[in-house]
């Protein structure tokens, strides 16, 4: 395994939140590696630290100590603006609550991610196929309120990968969906991974969802336990 194959590498990652006079140790020394093209599920109960890990790997917050590299770039040494750059190009997010901009159509929700990343080129053929695969081509003109939860989540997936990120981070992507839509979304994530080679790290507390991944990382009390 060469370092070029590593999309994520974390060493002794720690995060302490100060709430009033109390210190909350959300991460207590996490070591983790995710290879290019892997579909990894991080599973654990509430409070295990998986969301904190998600936020750090996505450049949304900095670790208290330890080192983490995303596509060879060390996050701990990054300034706020460098982390913003990382979110533009290297990381795509999918959230439990879809988090689409309600005033924009599905197409514009995807377009604004491209605009923020400075991408002014028309959508390439590969992405047209992705839209086909996600089954949302006919729904692109609609605003989020006119889309079902499953459709909104598929638009969110399209938005997350439109800038060809090194890794797609999904935080409980089926948490708000019924069983049928959950199956569709998880199947799509697996297809994206298998057919397009998209590296995916999915946070979930649901073992059935985690079963779609190639590898499962278990967390408890801020540590990787298996």
């Amino acid at each position, binding site marked *: 395994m060469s370092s070029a194959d590593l999309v994520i590498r974390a060493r002794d990652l720690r995060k302490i939140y100060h709430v009033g006079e109390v210190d909350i140790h959300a991460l207590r020394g996490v070591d983790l590696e995710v290879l290019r093209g892997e579909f990894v599920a991080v599973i654990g109960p509430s409070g295990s630290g998986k969301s904190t890990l998600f936020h750090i790997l996505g450049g949304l917050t900095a670790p208290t100590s330890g080192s983490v590299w995303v596509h060879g770039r060390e996050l701990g040494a990054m300034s706020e603006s460098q982390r*913003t750059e990382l979110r*533009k190009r290297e990381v795509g997010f999918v959230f439990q609550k879809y*988090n689409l901009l*309600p005033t924009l159509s599905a197409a514009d929700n995807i377009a604004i991610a491209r605009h*923020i990343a400075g991408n002014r080129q028309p959508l390439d053929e590969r992405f047209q196929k992705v839209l086909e695969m996600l089954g949302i081509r006919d729904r692109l003109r609609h605003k989020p309120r006119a889309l079902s939860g499953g459709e909104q989540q598929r638009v969110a997936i399209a938005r997350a990968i439109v800038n060809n990120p090194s890794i797609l981070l999904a935080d409980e992507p089926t948490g708000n969906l019924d069983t049928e839509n959950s199956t569709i979304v998880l199947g799509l994530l697996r297809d994206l991974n298998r057919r397009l080679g998209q590296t995916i790290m999915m946070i979930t507390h649901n073992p059935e969802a985690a079963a779609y991944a190639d590898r499962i990382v278990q967390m408890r009390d801020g540590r990787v336990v298996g």
Partner: protein
Amino acid sequence: MVNKLVIENLKHRPVRTLLSILAIGLEVTMMLTLVGLSEGMLEDTARRARGVGADILVRAPGTSLISLSSASMPQKIMEFFASQPHVKMVAGTVVHPIGGVNTITGIDLAEFERISGGFKYVAGGPFRNPDDVIVDTYYASQNNLKVGSTIRLLNRDWHVCGIVEPGKLARLVIPRATLQDLAGATGKLSQVFLKLDDPANTNRVLAALKEKLPDYPMYSMEELTTLYSVSNVPGLSAFIGVIVALSIVVGFLVVFLSMYTAILERTREVGILKALGASPAYILNIILRETVLLALAGSALGIILTYGSRWAVVTLAPASLSQKIVYGWWPIASAIALAGALFGALYPAWRAARQDAIEALTYE
């Protein structure tokens, strides 16, 4: 793309957007109406003074062109003016305030008709009795007067004997002697109009008169247009300045509240944009563009509303007020509204730009 987001955001909350535009519009209308009234009334006064047909206007010592002060110039001075070279005709008037910005003017009708060519009567005719009053069509319309109507002015009743076309001297005219008695200014005048044998002699006569009567303010009718300006009215520029400052405060508060609530409401959306990699400058740009759009729409509305305020002035108080459409102030008022709005948007925009992405994403 940013413009699309900005427009969609504004469309998303139409009531708030329209209220913000309306408030900025009223701010602009307030400025344009005030300046329009100031300039309009001064121009109207100058136009009516020029309508007399004289070449030179002489005021009493110690008075300004704009003042509403009563008569303090001896009537006998008319004989002095009449004896001066090139002076063909002389007419003295008494001007007395009757409340607000309105005045009543006392004239010697025969003297006034000689110098001005006389009033054009729409109805009725000249004075027949000391308590007769002549009004112009604006004053008659505003006060529903007809020939034969009675009006109460200066604590006594007056009989409308004639209604004349506007544009000459005053809207409300009574016999000079009557007004002098009522104002306790028997034998005194407020101003004297001089008509020369040739208007080309105006500057020469003016110079000679100023030398002989250095204490008396004198103006050629040419000068009136420039002298009846906002900057020559004591305190008016300062008053306009205060109103403009208040307008900025109003614009600031309206946009501050509007954008502050908009940002609070859109906390989660700001978090989404940040998660997508939007920089603080990108978010600042969105909010400031929204503000500029609100200010531009508000300015356009404010300019349109100014025509409404002018219509109201012309319809409700044509004899008391006159409002000009001040095109030169359109960009000034719009720039002031924009500055107030941008100032008001700064804190909400800064707050949004500095928002923590994780907190914003979990905001309910």
